[in-house]
């Protein structure tokens, strides 16, 4: 009796998550219908976001937030990938045992900081530094990208470290026995062996960077404009949604669901790719 109940309960919990996923997709798709119908595929490369005087209609396009999302994520990845790899290699191959634990804990704690704190820190402390070194207004694409990088580094480093830890010591030891340097061992043994896990970690971090809202909302400037320079303000999909959702009506709401749908599909595709292709291919 108890066993059956338990089985049913766990089965229910498991299927529930599946239905929630389908449910969210269905809701996004339904509410986006009006905008999908009105703007179609042109929505992707139209750069207008104007509400009519009477608040009822308007002309909406996703080009600027889509570009802003991609650019800020690109900057974040360009900074985060080399740093995260460095951290993971240091922890698995170079660091003395007494250092591994404190550094690992520090990284895991960094990953646990809520994003709003990164946003506040970024705005009040980091943005002035960017302004005085690179120029611009402090708030803008570059600042958002750098802070995003700092946010995803711990995540990426932790998964990469785990992947690198799975490399059998026998393989590394034989390479060292052949006279290979640490650099050569990392390049020719560890990296190829852990490749699946490393790429997977990069893609998962990418998914996180794409959807990050609070910190970016503080830092990107929230301006509907394609940036001319890297320090210029622009906007991203989650930031636009967070800023405008509460006050929007009718067609604008629908256009935002359309944007949300785009973000959902892209993140979903990326994470599926990471899960099924890279993590699944090899027993990492």
């Amino acid at each position: 009796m108890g066993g059956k109940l338990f089985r049913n309960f766990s089965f229910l919990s498991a299927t529930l998550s599946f239905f929630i996923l389908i449910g969210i997709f269905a809701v996004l798709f339904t509410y986006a219908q009006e905008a999908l119908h009105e703007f179609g595929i042109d929505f992707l490369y139209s750069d207008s976001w104007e509400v009519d005087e009477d608040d009822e209609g308007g002309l909406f396009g996703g080009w600027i937030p889509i570009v802003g999302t991609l650019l800020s994520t690109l900057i974040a990845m360009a900074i985060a990938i080399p740093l995260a790899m460095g951290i993971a290699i240091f922890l698995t191959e170079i660091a003395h045992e007494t250092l591994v634990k404190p550094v690992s804990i520090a990284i895991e704690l960094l990953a646990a900081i809520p994003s709003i704190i990164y946003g506040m820190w970024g705005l009040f402390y980091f943005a002035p530094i960017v302004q005085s070194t690179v120029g611009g207004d402090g708030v803008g694409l570059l600042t958002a990208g750098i802070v995003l990088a700092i946010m995803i580094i711990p995540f990426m480093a932790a998964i990469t470290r785990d992947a690198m830890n799975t490399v059998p010591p026998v393989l590394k030891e034989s390479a060292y026995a052949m006279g290979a340097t640490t650099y050569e061992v990392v390049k020719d043994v560890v990296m190829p062996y852990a490749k699946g896990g490393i790429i997977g970690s990069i893609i998962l971090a990418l998914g996180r960077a794409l959807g990050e809202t609070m910190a970016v909302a503080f830092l990107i400037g929230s301006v509907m404009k394609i940036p001319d320079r890297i320090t210029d303000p622009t906007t991203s999909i989650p930031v636009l949604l967070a800023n405008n959702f509460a006050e929007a009506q009718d067609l604008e709401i629908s256009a935002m669901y359309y944007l949300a749908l785009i973000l959902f599909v892209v993140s979903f595709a990326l994470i599926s790719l990471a899960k099924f292709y890279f993590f699944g291919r090899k027993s990492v």
Partner: protein
Amino acid sequence: MVMKKMFTAALIASVTAVTVYAEELKGRGASFPAPLYKVWTSEYYKATGVKVNYTPTGSGDGVKSITKRMVDFAGSDTPLKQKELKKEKLHMFPTVVGSVVLAYNLDGIKDGELKLSRKAIAGIFNGTITHWDDQAIAEHNAELQLPHEPITVAVRADKSGTTFNFTYFLNQIDEKIKVSKKPTWKANKVIAGKSNSGVSANIQQIKNSIGYIEYSYKMTLGLSAAQVENKEGQFITPTLESFQDAAKYATWTPDNDFYAVIGDPAGVTSYPIVAATFLLLPEEKQATNKNVTKFMEWAFTQGDAPAVELGYVPLPKETKDQIRAYWEAKGIR
């Protein structure tokens, strides 16, 4: 037995909790008067034991939630036209007057030192004036060292009643700037922030920036604000006295549910960027409306001091009397 007793006690407690809850009034909307409503509601609770809950979500959301009858009352910084009030079956009246200041971040220029003419303000926000040492700004500030730096304009990222009232003022000077809760700004360098606090933070962080915020944010954060040229050509420092002088020129009338945008008033001593904020009530909910007007009656008689303290201007006595008569006429007093 003990269990049973505890259970009964819990039941009684929850029932009493429910009755207390029934006395609660729920409102949401405009964030512009929110700091004041917060003080009013907590003082009112102390005085009467009646709980009034106000969630500052923005004027647009307020109108939406009262139209759908999700709340007992709503706050809005933009008055609704009579046609709309009729259609949605709502009552409307003003509660308090506030003001919008132009806060700036300029090295070496202190609070109240910068004088901005109407021409200069319109130029900064429509993008025709791009640098701080532009002739239009410099001609009234001969004694100041204005830098040859580009102007960064700090605006709201969200739809806002503050923006509506500020663009109303801009529209009086340059009719190409549309009155809107979220216009498309033509200025060269624009940075947007969410809510008054977001804009204030951007002004604090960005050198050579200027932006429009509610007066109380300037006060609490200690930002520098400009003197603004009014209709009569006088440069007026934003102070409570100059707001009060401006509020005198507001023309309210119960005939159109007090519909009036009071920005850019006449008067030599009036600060020009002032705005009233409104309360919306659903016509059919007589009983809860009476509770809301009871709360407002208390605020009108006891709430002026905290309003002044927070940088708002209480309504003139005549207006309050008109509003009381309006409640009487609608049967909600």
